[in-house]
């Protein structure tokens, strides 16, 4: 579904991502781990189009999307969350989800309904999303007034609102307590069962090992290992770079 071909991103002399090949298959959860500064978030930023590639190409469903702007990639079905939460703080919870209705199907809705009315279908969809993320009782609350965990959930919900096929989660468990991580674990599994493909970046190794179907490991902008969780866990290079030796 997503095919990264030798992508690289250099910031001046810093090679944040240095020729990574990575494939995410339809319907899988791919975990991406690695030490701080190894280029994980940069990959998410490149795939979501926040900044241009230095070299390489990005294929999505077989099409080259390397030069598309961010918002167009969302239309094709790539949505993301941010490591440091970025909500629309002075908008209500409901509005945060409302503005994110930007999938290809949603774009084809009648102009007037899309921008001014809000059809019954859209309303029902937002209600379902609120329900799934346990935010329905907060719908009129300003996003800035939510608790940390609620803000994380809302950001997740906002990413889902554009009906993506591929979901990029950038450290969704950062700052969460054990109970919230368990809920997140369950939600990610449910997403996969619903047919989403997920690229999960996470430092919470337990979570990644538990939900991911495959794991890729980055170090200094290069991929050093890839495979099923058990194999990656036993890989000598990965232990050396990230997990630590016993």
């Amino acid at each position, binding site marked *: 579904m997503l095919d990264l071909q030798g992508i690289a991103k250099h910031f001046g002399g810093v090679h944040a991502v240095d020729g990574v090949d990575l494939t995410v298959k339809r319907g899988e959860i791919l975990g991406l781990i690695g030490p701080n500064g190894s280029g994980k978030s940069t990959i998410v930023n490149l795939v979501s189009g926040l900044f241009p590639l230095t070299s390489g190409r990005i294929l999505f469903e077989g099409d080259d999307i390397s030069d598309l702007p961010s918002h167009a990639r969302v239309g094709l079905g790539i949505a993301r969350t941010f490591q440091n939460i970025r909500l629309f703080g002075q*908008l209500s919870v409901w509005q945060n989800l409302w503005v994110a209705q930007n999938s290809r199907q949603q774009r084809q809705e009648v102009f007037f309904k899309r921008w001014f009315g809000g059809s019954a279908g859209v309303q029902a969809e937002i209600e379902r999303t609120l329900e799934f993320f346990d935010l329905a009782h907060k719908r009129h609350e300003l996003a800035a007034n939510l608790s940390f965990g609620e803000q994380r959930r809302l950001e997740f919900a906002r990413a889902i609102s554009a009906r993506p096929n591929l979901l990029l989660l950038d450290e969704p468990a950062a700052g969460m307590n054990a109970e919230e991580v368990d809920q997140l674990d369950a939600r990610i599994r449910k997403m996969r069962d619903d047919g989403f493909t997920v690229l999960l970046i996470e430092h919470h190794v337990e979570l990644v090992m538990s939900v991911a179907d495959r794991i890729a490991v980055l170090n200094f902008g290069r991929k050093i290992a890839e495979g099923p969780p058990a194999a990656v866990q036993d890989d000598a290079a990965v232990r050396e770079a990230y997990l630590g030796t016993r």
Partner: protein
Amino acid sequence: MDFYLGLAQVIGVHTLLGLSAYCVLLTGQVSLAQAAFFAVGAYVAAILTVIFKWHLFAALGVSAVVSGLTACAVGFPALRVKGLMLVVATLAFGEAVRLFFFNFTYQIQAGELKIGPHGAEGFRQIRYFPEHGWSTFDVLMFIWLMVAIVMACLWWLDQSRAGAVMRAVGEDEVAAHSSGINVTAVKVLAMTIGGVIAGIGGGIFAHYTTHIEHVQFGVILATFAIAYPILGGLSNVFGTLLAVIFIQGFLIEGLRFLGDWRNLLFGALIVLAMNLRPRGFLDAGGVASLKRMLFAGKESSGA
């Protein structure tokens, strides 16, 4: 009595100017070009009624369109820059427009007189209202009708998804991009709507003052334009109206008896107001508690 009618006219026209900046500010852009769009509207409308003898409504329609197009054209290059750079870019554009009208002469002979804009002397004899028998009161009613229409449209826009999208862009452009919003299109659109509103306001301004010249459309006016919505708060259109009444009605006219002390107090009171209400007179929190007070117990509807 005439004094109050005149003041009410000033407040009405400045509300239009403030609303044009409000619309642009919603998307997080600080534009000092609103006075220039106002000037374009003023000159275009006045030329059409004075030289081409058009009906006022048609002239206002055209001035709105011309101002809107100007704003749209400014929007594309200017919006590539952000924050302070945008302020500087729009300021430069505003000055360019002012200097254009400083040098702009286009006059025709009408009997004894030459009429039309005449460079630094300005554009005199915009006598549409007296020639067509509009009393001061008629003019006042017309101004406030336009204010009401524009406010109603913006209010409706605010409640719609389009309004939420504009605010989302103002909150966080990166997040808006990543949520699938075409940020550039939204910003240029907001600029265009702001231009249309400023064009209408400028057109009316030219006709009730009967005399316009380039100095009226300088940096001071541009600063007032953005001061209104910032002081009033961006949660809804009434904040801007409140701020115009506060500044024009209270600070400028109400404190006139203080003489030179007024200017001192003027600045101090604005600073005080911004300290007491950093998000403006009407912020989201204030509106929420107001709603709770007014509709206690009633569950407000969705969206």
